[in-house]
Structures are given as structure tokens and as C-alpha cells.
């Protein structure tokens, strides 16, 4: 009897878990009401983590994309039609992402903005390709290019660009050869690991340590103590904002004084807060958008962003803003086409954005340059030389 009750309890728990998991994004495949007619608003979807550890990325993305849409709506929309932007919460989870991709397809959205996570985007890409929905992502993993979907576009450079620029700066420019690496085994970290290692190998440099951590690891003493014993001059960091911050904080506690170097996550306020400003001092960052003062366009974007949300603009918001602008420009130039025609229109769009000049090729990459910045007194500034 006791055993039986135990089993029942387990079954009940399982049922509850299945019910909560299944309820997040289930719409029957037959529920197809594609409304790509010529009247009514133009429906854009934004899929991003709005909850969970990666939700700060999703929040920034949403703000950037919303700003672009509201600017176009204020100017009268496209062909007299207003644009709507609906939000879908991926929770940073690829499984939820695939469910949402089906939902976005069945509810007749013309294009999708997001996601900020390569792994989620890669999971969603086959469905979006099959359904003919162009998607402009903030992911930067080279895996996105490997998907070979003609409907998938990147709103920034790939890891290869970030890390090639970084390696050029630290190895060629500063002559640092004693480099340790610490990366996580998630989609982003793995991409960073491979791209930076490739850039180092091309320069004949072998890292003195190559430590891999998991995405939800909390204690890095083992990896960092190993790195400390190798006495590197620089530590390459390939992990998302919060984890990167924890690694830097623990490294300083362990007495590691070498500066860290990395890509986009290391330039964000979340990284700075988690690590602490003094610990993050001197971090070298490869980023296509160093600050809000680099150009006239970025200054006006930052002002509009500040006015709308009362906070400082940063890279992810700028990327999503650029990406949304590109989609909207393509929608105008193609007279609100959809499917393959819209994808071709995006590919043909030449756009001067906050990150630079976008010109897409067949891989879906539109921009191929980053700049080097350094964190000084808690602020990311352009590096000298």
C-alpha cells in the first residue's frame, strides 16, 4: 500500500510538471489562420527571454525593438498600415523557443525579431524556415551561419569577427602571448572558445590554460586556481553576463590580477554589477557598439532611449534597434511582402545603422567589424591604439 501511494505521488508530480510545461506554448498544427492580407496592422513578433537568468538580454532587446517600431508608427507606419510588436517569452529555453516558433507561424506574424540566444535561435530556425518567416537574431554564434537558412539574419557580427578583432588587438597590437582561456560549454561559450582559439592558433599562440565550465556553475575555484598557477598575462572569458561577472569576482578573490578580455557580455552593466567595478577594471572588450557617443546616430538613439525608458542605452538595445529598422526598411521597399520575397528584400537592404554599415550576404551576416574598448572606472571606453 505504501509503495502504491508512493508511485501515485510520483505519477501525480509528473503529471503536474507535464501540465505546466505543456501549457506554455501549445497550439494545434491545424489552427492556421494566416492573416497576411493587405489591411490591418503589420504583425511583427519579438521572441526573447523575458524571465530567467537571461532576461536582461530580452528586456534590452524589447526596448530597442519597441523604439524602432514606435518611430515608424509615429511617421505613419508602412503604406499607411501601423506596425504591431508582440512579445513571446522564450525563457532562454530552446524547447520553449520551438513551441513559440510554431505559435508565431500559426498566428500569422510576418517576421520575427530575436532571439538574443544563439541556442534558442538555432532551435527555432528550422520551423521558421519551413514556415517562411524571416528572423533577425541578436545571436552571434557561428552555428547560426551553419544552419544555412535563407530566412535567418544576424543583426551583428559573428563570434569569429569579435574574437579575431580581439586577438589582433592583444596578440598583434600589445604582444601578449601568455593567454589563458575560460569558457562555458553552452552554445555561446563554445562558439567563443572555438573562434578565439582559432584566432590564437593562426598567430602561433597556444593558450597556457583552457578551462571549460558549465553554464550554471557557481564555484570556479578549481578552474581559476589552475589558471593562476600558469600565471597568464591575460584571461579570455567566454560566458554570458552573470557567469562572467561571477568568474571575475572569484578570480580577484583568489588573487588573480591579470586583466580579462571578452566580447559583448563583458561590456554590459550586468557584468559590471556582478563582478564589481574595481574587479572589472581593465577588462578588454570587443564590441561593435562601444558607447552612445560614437556617432550622431548613436547620440540621437541614446537620447530617444533615455526619454522612453529613463535608462542608458547599451549594445543589445542598439542591435535590436538596428535589426528592427532593417526589417521595417525591407518591408517598405518590398511593399509589405512576406515569406521568401521579404527575406530577399532584407538581404538586398543596405542600411547605415548604429553598429555600422549593414550589407547582407548569402550567409545572413550583414556586418563584419567590431572595435576594442576597455573598462576604466566602471565605464567602457574606446581603447587607445
Amino acid at each position, binding site marked *: 500500500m505504501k509503495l502504491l501511494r508512493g508511485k501515485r505521488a510520483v505519477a501525480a508530480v509528473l503529471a503536474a510538471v507535464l501540465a505546466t510545461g505543456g501549457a506554455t506554448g501549445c497550439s494545434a498544427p491545424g489552427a492556421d489562420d494566416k492573416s497576411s492580407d493587405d489591411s490591418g496592422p503589420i504583425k511583427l513578433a519579438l521572441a526573447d527571454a523575458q524571465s530567467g537568468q537571461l532576461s536582461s538580454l530580452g528586456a534590452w532587446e524589447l526596448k530597442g525593438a519597441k523604439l524602432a517600431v514606435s518611430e515608424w508608427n509615429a511617421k505613419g507606419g508602412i503604406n499607411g498600415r501601423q506596425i504591431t510588436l508582440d512579445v513571446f517569452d522564450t525563457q532562454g529555453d530552446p524547447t520553449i523557443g520551438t513551441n513559440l516558433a510554431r505559435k508565431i507561424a500559426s498566428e500569422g506574424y510576418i517576421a520575427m525579431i530575436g532571439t538574443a540566444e544563439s541556442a534558442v535561435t538555432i532551435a527555432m530556425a528550422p520551423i521558421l524556415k519551413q514556415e517562411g518567416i524571416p528572423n533577425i537574431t541578436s545571436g552571434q554564434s557561428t552555428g547560426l551561419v551553419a544552419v544555412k537558412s535563407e530566412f535567418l539574419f544576424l543583426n551583428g557580427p559573428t563570434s569569429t569577427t569579435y574574437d579575431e578583432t580581439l586577438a589582433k588587438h592583444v596578440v598583434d597590437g600589445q604582444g601578449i602571448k601568455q593567454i589563458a582561456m575560460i569558457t562555458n560549454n553552452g552554445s555561446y561559450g563554445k562558439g567563443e572558445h572555438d573562434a578565439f582559439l582559432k584566432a590564437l592558433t593562426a598567430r602561433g599562440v597556444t593558450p597556457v590554460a583552457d578551462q571549460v*565550465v558549465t553554464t*550554471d556553475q*557557481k*564555484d570556479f*575555484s578549481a578552474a581559476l*586556481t589552475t589558471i593562476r598557477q600558469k600565471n597568464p598575462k591575460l584571461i579570455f572569458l567566454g560566458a554570458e553576463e552573470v557567469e562572467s561577472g561571477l568568474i571575475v569576482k572569484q578570480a580577484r578573490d583568489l588573487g588573480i590580477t591579470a586583466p580579462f578580455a571578452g566580447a559583448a557580455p563583458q561590456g554590459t552593466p550586468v557584468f559590471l554589477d556582478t563582478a564589481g567595478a574595481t574587479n572589472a577594471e581593465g577588462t578588454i572588450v570587443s564590441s561593435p557598439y562601444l558607447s552612445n557617443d560614437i556617432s550622431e546616430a548613436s547620440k540621437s538613439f541614446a537620447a530617444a532611449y533615455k526619454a522612453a525608458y529613463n535608462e542608458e542605452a547599451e549594445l543589445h538595445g542598439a542591435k535590436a534597434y538596428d535589426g528592427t529598422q532593417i526589417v521595417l526598411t525591407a518591408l517598405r521597399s518590398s511593399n509589405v511582402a512576406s515569406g521568401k520575397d521579404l527575406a530577399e528584400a532584407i538581404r538586398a537592404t543596405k542600411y547605415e545603422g548604429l553598429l555600422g554599415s549593414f550589407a547582407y550576404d548569402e550567409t545572413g551576416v550583414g556586418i563584419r567589424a567590431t572595435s576594442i574598448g576597455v573598462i576604466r572606472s566602471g565605464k567602457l571606453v574606446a581603447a587607445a591604439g
Partner: protein
Amino acid sequence: MQVTLQTIIGGISLGAVYALVALGFSLVYRTMGLVNFAHGNVVTVGAYLASTFYLSTKLPFALAMIVAIAVTGVIGLVIERVLRPLENKDFDLMLIGTIGFGIVLDALIIMIWGATGRAVPSPVAGAPIELFGLRIRTYDLVVLAIAALATVLLVLFLSRTKRGAAMQAVAMDHEAATAVGINVGRSNAIAFMVGAGLAALAGGLVGPLLYVSPTLGGALGIKGFAAAILGGFGSIPGAVVGGLAIGVLDSFAAGHFQGYSELVTFLVFTAIIMIRPTGVFGERTVNRA
């Protein structure tokens, strides 16, 4: 050698936090025979409350913790009060009730504090202590001391006070305890309250070590649950040993197996549980389910 010792040090401070989480799980389990699936979410609530009082209200860290523990203890009482009608009627529903409470708390956290997290600066200033080339964070020592103190107080409460002895009696045989006039409902309420308080203590302490976000308790909850099982579910010393063991095991696996550390940690855990299904201390006196 240095790497090994430093790894142990790194594992122990998180292990102490896992131990506190495990204590909460075990206390409720040994009193009621119930696994409180909302426990991880209570940890998150505690972490948010402590960090809010510390950062926004600018209370001293110790005071912020005490307030957080008190408020979270009340949440524990509320959970128990709502679930009480189900006690001795339908145990499965009670179990699902705790899952439901977990989801509710999760939603409340996101409504109140937002989906993004916050970093909590360390309340203990000062550089890490250097000893034979090893570095020990002063805050880690604080965490260990508080966790040890909490454990001692809990053991004293259970063994030396009348209320604690009553709870022990309920844990052993709740029908007999009722027969000799012990209020089982009150006993359960105290277990939930103290369990929630321990969760808040764990959450508040771990805030400056990690990053306070809505997912914080999920990760700690799983490790804490594993720790409780490893030590012997329901056993107080078992929870402590289990917590420290999981913390150190985790750190070692991270050092040796890098990307596969999580897999290795839980494989080792599974192996131990297969050899000793009742855990290290193997009490498991309670089985009301």
C-alpha cells in the same frame, strides 16, 4: 595539491548553503513526511527580501537578514495553513499543493522584483586571508560560522525544548503524539516556519556570493534536495554532511571533468544512493506517504 585544497575551500562555502537548504527540506519531511517542492522558491524569496532590505532600505546586513527570515517564516506559516486541511486526507494533493505554491511564489517574485536580477556587494569588507598560498574569503568564513550556528541552534531546539521534543514525537508517530495531547497542526506549522526561515537564511547568505535572480532558488533547491537525500532524508546531521559533500563533490567534478561536471556530480550521487538508498545517516523513520 594547492588546486585540490583551494577546490575544497571553494566547495565548502557553497556546500554550507546547500546544507541550510537541505535542513529546511529535512525538517519539514521528518515532521510531516512531506517534500516541500516550494522550498527552492522560498529560498529565492528570502534572497530577494534580504537584498532589498540591505540595498534599498540600507539596513545593516545582519538586520536585513533577520527581517527577511521573519517575513519568510510567515510565508512558511501561510503555506502550512492553506495545506493543513489536506493533512491526513490526501497526501498527493498536498504534494502538488507545494508545487502550486512554488509557481505562485515564482510569479510573485517576477511581479514584485522583475525578471532581471541584481548583484549584492559583499557585506564584509577586506581582502581574502592568505594562508600557505591558499586564499580564503572572509565572507566564506562568515557563511560557515552562521550555518554552523544555525545548525547547533536547530539541534538544541529539537532536543532541549518541549516544543522541539513534541516535534520529534510527531516525526516518530503522529497518531501516538496526538493521543498524548500534542498539537500536530502546530508542530507542522513550526516545521514549515523554521524550514522557510532556514531557506531565507540560505538565500540571504548566498546573495553576495552569487547573483540574485528569479532562477536562483531553482539551482539551489535541486542541490539542496540532493544533499538531503544523500545525507539521509529527514536526518539533521545528514543534511549538513550531505550539503557539504555535494558542494565539495561539485567543485571537484568541475576541476576534473570541466564541461561534464554536472553529469559526473549526479552520476556519483546516483551511485551512492544505489549503494545506500537511505543515505549516509539512513534514518528515514518517517514514511507517512
